[in-house]
Structures are given as structure tokens and as C-alpha cells.
């Protein structure tokens, strides 16, 4: 522990806070590498210590973050491969800050949750988890596209092993499906990155420089699509979502938690960080298509969730539905939609992460996740029931809890963009109440009919320690969302400005021959401005 703290201090002195946060888990993994695999308890404590220390170290990012600034903060920059315009460049703004915090917050909880669930290859499991954490943090903090790509790929490998080694009976199928999907996306993105490097003339992989170098409007559509697919696979958006239920059902609890809470957000984060600011013209042109896919995801995901026999696949499909909300909000491209979308990324991370933790608690006791195996658990496990209720309510967007604020802002933003989107998405709110309440009724209510459930122990102290922080966060974000909204507002405003400038520039450059796709989509966005101007 002391060793870890010392190493963290060294990182901090040598580079900076952000580097220390990103690489401390890696250091922890390195320490574990040399530890004695027989002393499992010590291994677990070390891994937990490393991730907890990472969380503590990341707290100053929140407290010292200047909410008045739109640009990057805690920036670290060092040349790496200068002849290719590649640099080691880290930084956070309002868009990435909370995703970094979500990651550092949930990883120790996920580790704590797998304390007794993982008994095979403990050492490798813990190393994978810590590697994954560094990968996730790097993705959110990297400001150089090359560096970003490395983290993006690096994170895949431990996740692949988490599913493939510690997963359920169908784990190989699920892991390969996950890997192939993501790899396909990564390759598309790699092509896109290279094209970006050459087409813009910036001759740099630095994101901030690329922001300043406009992508020719004609090239935007193809580049946008390359990035879009990579991110849409990850989100996942309909119809690319079928890897998710498999991956979730097979993954161990900790894997599911991080997969749902953080990995899925990389797709939506990619939309915000790359797709929208780099290819504003194409983004505008394709917004109707994306919105329709998001709407299908919301309603279709909810419908399919309704009839799932397995709690985990139910939650997985509910993620498809929830992430549909997020994408819809982001592509509304107004402050409410964007802020709501970002906030909902956190909310989904908390509530779905907690749902997977709760399912994991049941699985550890009963070794099944089939809804029909349960019933009447409120009687047997009252504390579990209370936690389950709160998380369920958070997931269905009850006001006062976190989910509501994000959902409301998204719907408001979508409504302002196009009332039809807003109304259709609002129907998803009814469906989410149906599938969640029906599931929780079948699991928690009624008489205990299955004798195997009669003597289930209630939450243990360790399980409380895992759930309580999340429940507190659920209340905190529901009652005082300004803590987040205030910090993300300037960055979101800047993003909107970037997109508008990009469009204006494209329009000024090519007034006589507008690209075909842009003119086709003009009908959609016109509605947007119409709705916005309607205020007296």
C-alpha cells in the first residue's frame, strides 16, 4: 500500500495529476505481477488499494476543476513521435471529467463486489481489472488521437479475458462476438484516423489542432460514418446491439458493471469528442437517421427487455433503451439535450452498474439469474429489497433520483429539436416502468414459492459497502444535479459553438455546390430552428 502511494507520488511529481490517475492502476497491476499468487487475500487488498487510491487521487480533479472554463484543464503535453505529429497529451474538460470520475468511483466497488465471487485465477483477474481501468481512464483523458487509439485498443484485451475466462457457460461465443464487433469498429476508426491526418492538412494527431483544421465537407460523410460505426458498435445502437446481451449475461459481475457503466459510454463519448466537432456538416446531415435509430433503440430495447427470462439480459436490453435516450439527447445538439445526455451517461453508469451488482449478489447466493427462480425476496432479504427498489426507481427516472434529471433534459432537448422525437421517446418512459416494475414484482414480491429462496442471507457488510456509495450518489445527483450540470455547461456550450462554426465555415466555402447529403437533410434541421425561435 505504501509502495503504491509512493509510486503514485512519483508519477504525480514526474508528470502530473492526470497521468498519476490514469497510470496508477497500471502500476498496481505491475505490483501484482510480482506478488505471490497463493496469497489471494493480499492480492485482492492490493488491487482494491490501488483502485481506491486512484479514486482518491481523482477527487482533486472534481474539486479543483474550474467550472467557468470551457477548455481543457489539468493538461499535460510532451512530444512523443514529433515527426508524425504524435504527442503524449492528456487533459479533461466538462465532457470527460465525470466519465473519469465515474470510472475511478466504480472500479474499486466492482473489485469489492467480486471479493468472494472470483476464486479462480484471482491474480490474473485483478490484473485484468486494473489494466482495464487504466485503459478506460486513458480513453477519456487522451487528447491525442494516436494515444486515444492505443488506450481504446488496450482496454479491449482485458475485457475480452474478463468475459472469456471468468464468464458463464457461453463465455467464448460472447467474448469473441464482443471482440469481433469492437475490432471491426476499431479498424474503421483507424482508417478514419489516418484519413483525418492526411485530409485536414494538419499533419497532426493532436485533437485540439484537428479541431482547428476543418475537414472538407465532401470528405466528412465518409469519415463520419467510419467513426460513427466504431462508436455505434460500442454504444451499442440498434441494430448493432446483439453482442451486448450475450456479453452481459456471460460476463462476471465486475465485468458487467464496468462494461455497462463505462465501456458503453466510450461510444457516446466518441460522438461528443470526435463525431460532432470534427464532422459537423455530416453530423447534421445524418442526424435524422441517427435519431431514428436512437428512437428504435429506445422503444425496441424496452419491448425486448420486457420478455427476457434472465435478469441480466433484461438489464442489458434496458441499456440499449437507455443509451438510445443518451444518443437522442446528444444529437439534439442543444444545451438541454447535450447536458442531459452527458448526465444520463453518468446516471446510467450508476443505476445500471448498481443493478448488475444487485443481480450479482443474487447470483452468488443462488447461481441463477432466471426471474422465475425467484419471488418473494422482499420477505427474506428486506435490506436487499430496499436497495433494489431505490435502484429500480432510479433506473425508471423517478424525480428526486438521478435518472429523472437526465431523462427530462434529454426529452426536453429532443422535443425542442423535433417534437415528434420528444413524444416518441417519452413513450419509452412508460415502457421502462413496465419492464422494471414487472421484473421487480416477480423477483421481490409475492410469496416465497421456491424453497431454495427461503433462507437466503440478507446483505453482508461488504455488500453494503459496495451499494451504499452508489445509492448516495443516486440521491445526490437527483437532488443536486447542478454539481454536474454547472461543470459541464461551458464545455457543452463550446461544443455547440464548434459545430455551428464548422457548419458556417462549410457553407461559406462551398456556396454554389452544396454537397448532396447536406441539402437532403435540410428539412430536418429547419424544424429545429423553427422550434427554438418559437419563444416570444
Amino acid at each position, binding site marked *: 500500500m505504501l509502495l503504491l502511494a509512493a509510486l503514485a507520488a512519483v508519477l504525480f511529481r514526474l508528470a502530473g495529476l492526470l497521468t498519476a490517475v490514469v497510470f496508477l492502476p497500471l502500476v498496481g497491476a505491475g505490483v501484482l505481477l510480482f506478488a505471490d499468487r497463493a496469497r489471494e487475500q493480499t492480492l485482492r487488498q492490493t488491487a482494491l488499494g490501488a483502485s481506491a487510491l486512484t479514486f482518491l487521487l481523482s477527487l482533486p480533479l472534481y474539486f479543483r476543476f474550474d467550472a467557468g472554463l470551457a477548455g481543457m484543464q489539468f493538461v499535460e503535453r510532451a512530444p512523443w513521435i514529433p515527426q508524425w505529429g504524435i504527442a503524449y497529451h492528456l487533459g479533461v474538460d466538462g465532457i470527460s471529467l465525470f466519465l473519469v470520475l465515474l470510472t475511478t468511483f466504480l472500479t474499486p466497488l466492482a473489485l469489492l463486489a467480486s471479493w468472494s465471487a472470483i476464486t479462480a485465477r484471482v491474480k490474473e483477474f485483478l490484473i485484468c481489472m486494473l489494466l482495464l481501468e487504466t485503459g478506460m481512464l486513458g480513453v477519456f483523458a487522451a487528447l491525442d488521437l494516436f494515444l486515444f487509439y492505443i488506450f481504446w485498443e488496450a482496454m479491449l484485451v482485458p475485457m475480452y479475458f474478463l468475459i472469456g475466462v471468468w464468464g458463464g457457460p457461453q463465455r467464448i461465443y460472447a467474448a469473441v*462476438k464482443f471482440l*469481433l464487433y469492437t475490432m471491426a469498429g476499431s479498424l474503421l476508426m483507424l482508417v478514419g484516423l489516418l484519413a483525418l491526418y492526411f485530409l485536414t492538412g494538419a499533419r497532426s494527431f493532436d485533437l485540439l489542432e484537428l479541431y482547428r483544421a476543418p475537414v472538407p465537407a465532401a470528405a466528412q460523410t465518409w469519415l463520419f460514418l467510419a467513426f460513427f460505426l466504431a462508436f455505434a458498435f460500442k454504444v451499442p445502437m*440498434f*441494430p448493432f*446491439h*446483439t*453482442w451486448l446481451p450475450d456479453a452481459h449475461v456471460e460476463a462476471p459481475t465486475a465485468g458487467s458493471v464496468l462494461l455497462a457503466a463505462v465501456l458503453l459510454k466510450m461510444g457516446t463519448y466518441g460522438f461528443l469528442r470526435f463525431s460532432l466537432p470534427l464532422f459537423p456538416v455530416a453530423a447534421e446531415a445524418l442526424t435524422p437517421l441517427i435519431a431514428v435509430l436512437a428512437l428504435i433503440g429506445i422503444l*425496441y430495447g424496452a*419491448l*425486448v427487455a*420486457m*420478455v*427476457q427470462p434472465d435478469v441480466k439480459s433484461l438489464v442489458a436490453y434496458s441499456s440499449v433503451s437507455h443509451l438510445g435516450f443518451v444518443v437522442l439527447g446528444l444529437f439534439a445538439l*442543444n*444545451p*438541454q439535450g447535450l*447536458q*442531459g445526455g452527458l448526465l444520463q451517461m453518468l446516471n446510467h453508469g450508476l443505476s445500471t452498474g448498481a443493478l448488475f451488482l444487485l443481480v450479482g449478489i443474487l447470483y452468488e447466493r443462488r447461481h441463477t439469474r432466471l426471474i422465475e427462480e425467484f419471488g*418473494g425476496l*422482499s*420477505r427474506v432479504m428486506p435490506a436487499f429489497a430496499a436497495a433494489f427498489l431505490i435502484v429500480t*426507481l432510479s433506473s425508471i427516472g*423517478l*424525480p*428526486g433520483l438521478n435518472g*429523472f*434529471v437526465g431523462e*427530462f*433534459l434529454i*426529452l*426536453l432537448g429532443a*422535443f*425542442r429539436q423535433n*417534437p415528434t422525437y*420528444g*413524444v416518441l421517446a*417519452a*413513450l419509452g*418512459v*412508460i415502457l421502462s*416502468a*413496465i419492464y422494471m*416494475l*414487472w421484473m421487480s*414484482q416477480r423477483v*421481490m*414480491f*409475492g*410469496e416465497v414459492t421456491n424453497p431454495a429462496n427461503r433462507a437466503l442471507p440478507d446483505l453482508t457488510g461488504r455488500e453494503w459497502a459496495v451499494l451504499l456509495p452508489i445509492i448516495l450518489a443516486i440521491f445526490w445527483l437527483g*437532488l*443536486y*444535479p*447542478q454539481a454536474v*450540470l*454547472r461543470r459541464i*455547461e461551458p464545455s457543452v456550450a463550446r461544443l455547440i459553438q464548434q459545430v455551428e462554426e464548422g457548419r458556417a465555415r462549410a457553407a461559406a466555402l462551398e456556396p454554389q455546390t452544396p454537397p448532396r447529403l447536406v441539402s437532403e437533410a435540410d428539412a430536418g434541421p429547419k424544424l429545429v430552428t423553427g*422550434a427554438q425561435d*418559437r*419563444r*416570444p
Partner: protein
Amino acid sequence: MHELIWLVPALPLLGVLINGLLGSRLSPRAISVVGCGVVGLAALAALGLFAELTALPPHTRVLRQVLYTWIASGNFRAEVALLVDPLSAVMLLVVTGVGFLIHVYSVGYMHGDRGYARYFTYLNLFTFSMLVLVLADNFLLLYVGWEGVGLCSYLLIGFWYERDSAANAGKKAFITTRIGDVGFAVGIFLVFATFGTVNIREVFDAAGRLPVGDAALTAITLLLFLGAVGKSAQLPLHVWLPDAMEGPTPVSALIHAATMVTAGVYLVARLSLLYALAPVSLAVVAAVGGITAVFAASIGLTQNDIKRVLAYSTLSQLGYMFAALGVGAWTAAIFHLMTHGFFKGLLFLGSGSVIHAVHEEQDMRKMGGLAKKIPHTYWTMLIGAVAIAGIPPLAGFFSKDEILGEAYKLGFLWVWAIGVVVAIMTAFYMFRLIGLTFWGESRVDTAVEPRIHESPRVMTVPLWLLAIPSIVLGLFLAWPGPPLGSLFGMEGPGLLAGWLEPVYEHGFELLGHHEAEFAIFGIDGVLILISVAVALGGMLAAWRLFGVEIGPLQRRGAPAQVNRASLNKWWFDDLNHLVFIVIGGRVAAFAWWFDAKVVDGIVNGIGAVTRRSGGGLARVQTGHVQNYALGIAVGLIVMAGSYLMIAGR
């Protein structure tokens, strides 16, 4: 005192925290003291606010407290801000006053239940949410309270979650009302898109500049009314309320009679200015209310479960209130909301006492002759029944009569006619209930018969405390104006009308009428005579059928078809079952099939094709150097050839 508005909702919230977090460690006594105490204190705080309001000149009777900015995004802004004006003040008194008595009654009713702490936690949470709803100064905070009471309703209906019927009823209530709530939410979006704010008073200011009948306003008011239809269980979203009787009876009294279900009425009254600007919406409100009033009363005539009769009666009375709102008789609607809160709360608590006495039996066919055995319950319920039937001088007479009179005089003859029909039915089914329960010979199970007992003091005292306002509240609130005032030569509006005047005056100006002057003679006298006559007629008919000769219980008179329709609740539940469970289930099952076979099928198909082509290509790797050399040679030739072709052009 206005810096202390927050105290009113905060006190019940404190109860939630104490009983919710420590409940398992507290004694039942401590739980009761906390649970009831916080609501009692909130009632006192509400009285304090009320007193402060009365001290102000009528047109400045507004207290506002901003606690903090809840959500700010772009130009959207929602604060946690509380507002007390004459309208919210009367609601505060009803919610905390009736609420307190029902909390106390619960101490006896829920005695010994294993979920005692949970019960009071939920009940306090409900009170908190309801107070937020009433005090909200913007649409979004109102929505918070709105959803909050819905949640508590869900939790309390399904309080005995081990019963499947209770768990189902809770879920049904939540989902049905959520359909309305989505309308409410979309209404809020449209409010913001139209006015750029969700603050109610700012919206009023901006709306005042729009022409009457503005399309956006009509849409907004209709969408918000959809929310009210869900929460106040009006047609066609009424189906959850009768099932909600699965909850403990005090819950039915508090949530499903006196307070939560009246939230829709409160909403429309609070936004009366917007409705005044949207005549189409007002007509819709009147129509939905009127139809629900008749429809529900017709079902109430034949139900045999004592609580279900009261549930349909509540639907019907809420319909009455909406009909009043729709014709512009806003004061009358709130008047009826208040009196109904007391006498219906009383009737529900009374039914709880009956159910207690006959050991959890709710079927009135297995009661009868209870009057002598549980006299407190009998007399208080009788008072409630006379009050709701509209016999002067009890409370229901005044409020109901004001609705009928206003409807008639404002030219809504059809609303008046419906009101009269409903009045007959109301008197009939209430006295059918009284007759089957208390009069005639006992049909109680012989095993239970000797153990029938009156409820403890902690339950009968609240009954009497609700019975008193059920007698005098109407007279008090109508004083010094009509109709008694005019007898004594006093003119001007009644107490309540005068009190609410500042809230409604702009709306009244828009509608071009004032609360009509009232007189005991002339047309008013005729109207009063008609309404009292029909009430007496209904009572007598019920007494004749179910009071005097109680013999074998056959339904007589009504044609078989109508009777069947009434007994089957006009087949609404069957329709819902078909649409939502059968068809909805098929759609969801089809979606899953589609996902597994088609969407994922394509993905797996691509995988299979890749694997097979990979397998095919693998055969090329023969391991023979000659084959590889051949491959290299062919490749070179192809490359060179293509180079030459391209370069040669």
C-alpha cells in the same frame, strides 16, 4: 414565517428519514409518535402560514420561498421554490389536517403489522410528496410531487406485497398513471418551448398576451389534463383506482379519496387561467368529468365489496369536480374537493372499521345488522353517507349544490342534468351500502359473529373528528353568502369564494362571469328543491330495497343487460387485458424473436460465412513449398500485368 415554508414538507420528510433508517430498531410506539407527530407539526406549520396569509390584504396573499436552483441548462431553469397562495393554503390544510387524522387512525388499524415502520415511512413520504405538489411554484417541481405521490401510491397499494393481487394492483396503478404522466411531461416540454420558462406565474404572464383559443395553449392544457385524468382516475385511465383498494384502508382514505386523487382537480384549478384561454380544453374537461361521474356511479350501484363501492363513488365525485372545473365553477370544484376530502375520508375509515370488526371481510353480502354492534362506526358512517348524498345542512349538500347551480346558471344544462342523475345514484348506492352493512339481519359468518367488536379509541376518535367537519364544513365555507346568507339578508360571496377570489379573478374576467350571486328563492330555490328531492328519492329507494326487508339479496328492477354491464364494470378491465397483456405481450415476444433470429441471425450469419470462407482459405495453406512458389509467381504476374495496364493507359 414565509422563510419557514420549507418546514411544512420538511417535517414529514424527517419522519421518512427517522422511520425509514431506524425503523427496525424503534418500538412501535416510537414509530407512531414520529409518524403522526411530524404530520401534526406540519399541520400546525400550515396553520401558521394560513394565519399569515389572512393577515395580508387579499390581493397580496402570496408567500414564496426559493430554496435552491435545481436544474439549469441553457435557458432552462427550474428552482426548488415553494409558493403559498389562497388556493395552495386550503389544500395544505386538507392534506395535513385529514392526513394527520388518518395517520392517527392508522396507529390502531395497522397495529401489529410486521411492516409497521415501513408503513409509516411510506405514509410520511406520501405526505411530503403531496405537500411538494401543492406548494410547487413551477411545473417541474409540481411534477416531482406528482410522481412522488404516484410512487407512494404504488408502494402502499402493494404494501402487502405477498398477495399477488396487491402487487399487481400497485403495478397497474403506477403504469396507468404513468401514461397520463407522460402527457403531463410532454405538456411541460411544450410549455417551455412556447413560453421559455416553466415558472407558473411567468407562464401566466406570458399566456395572458396570447389570444383566447391559441393552438399551443389548447395543446398544453389538454396534455396537462391527460396527466390529471391519470392521477384522478378519470375515464379512460380510471381502471387502476378500484384495484387500488388492495392497499390498507387508511391508505385508501388518504391517497385514494381525500388527497392524491384530487391532485388532478388541484392542477386544473391552479392553472385555471390557462384553461380559461383554451375553451376547447375546458369543454373536454367538463365532458370527461361528466361522463366519468355517471359511468362510475352506475358501477357503484351493483358492487358488493364495501371498499369498491366507495372507490367508484370517489371516481364519480371526482368526475363531478372536473365537470365543475369544465364549466368554470372553479370555486365550487375546490369546495367539493374539500368537503369530499372529509366525508369520503370518513367513509373509508368507517369501512376500515367495519372490515376490522368482521375480521377482514369486505363483502357486504356477508355483513348486515352491524349498527348496534359497532355504534360509533355506524353513526359516523351514516353522517358521511348523508353528507355525500347531499342532504342539507351537511357539507356535501352545499358543495354539490353549488356545482349544480353554477352549471345550470352558466348555461351548461347537460352538466346539470348529469349532476342530477348522479345525485340520485349516489344517494342510492350510499344507502345501499349502509343498508347492507348496518341494517336488517346479520349475514355475518357464524364463526365471526360473536367476535364482532367496535374499534379502539385511536380509530373511533378520528372518525368523529372527521364527522364534525362533514356536518358543518359546508355551512361554514358557504357562510356568510349563499344560500343561508341570503336568508338572513346577507349578500356577497361565501367564505371560500371570497378567499379564492384573488386566485381566480383573471380567469373569471376571461370567461366573462363571476361566481353567481345566490338566492334561496326563484330559480335557485327550484334547483335546491330538485337536488334535495332526488337525493331523498335515492335514499328512500335504497332504504326500501336494502333497509326494511333485507331478506334474500337479489338484484331487482334493473334490466339484466345493464346490470351485467355495471357488475362487469363495463368490461374495461377485459379490454385492457386484451390490449395490453395479450396484444402487448405478443408484440414484445415478437420483438424478441426478431432480435434473436433476424438481427442477431444476420450477425451470426456473417460470422458463419467468414468462418467458412476462412476454412476454405485455410486449405490453401498446404505446406508444400511448390504451391507457395506457384502462388507467388501468379501474384507477381498479376501485379506486373495490372501495373502495365494502368501505366500503359
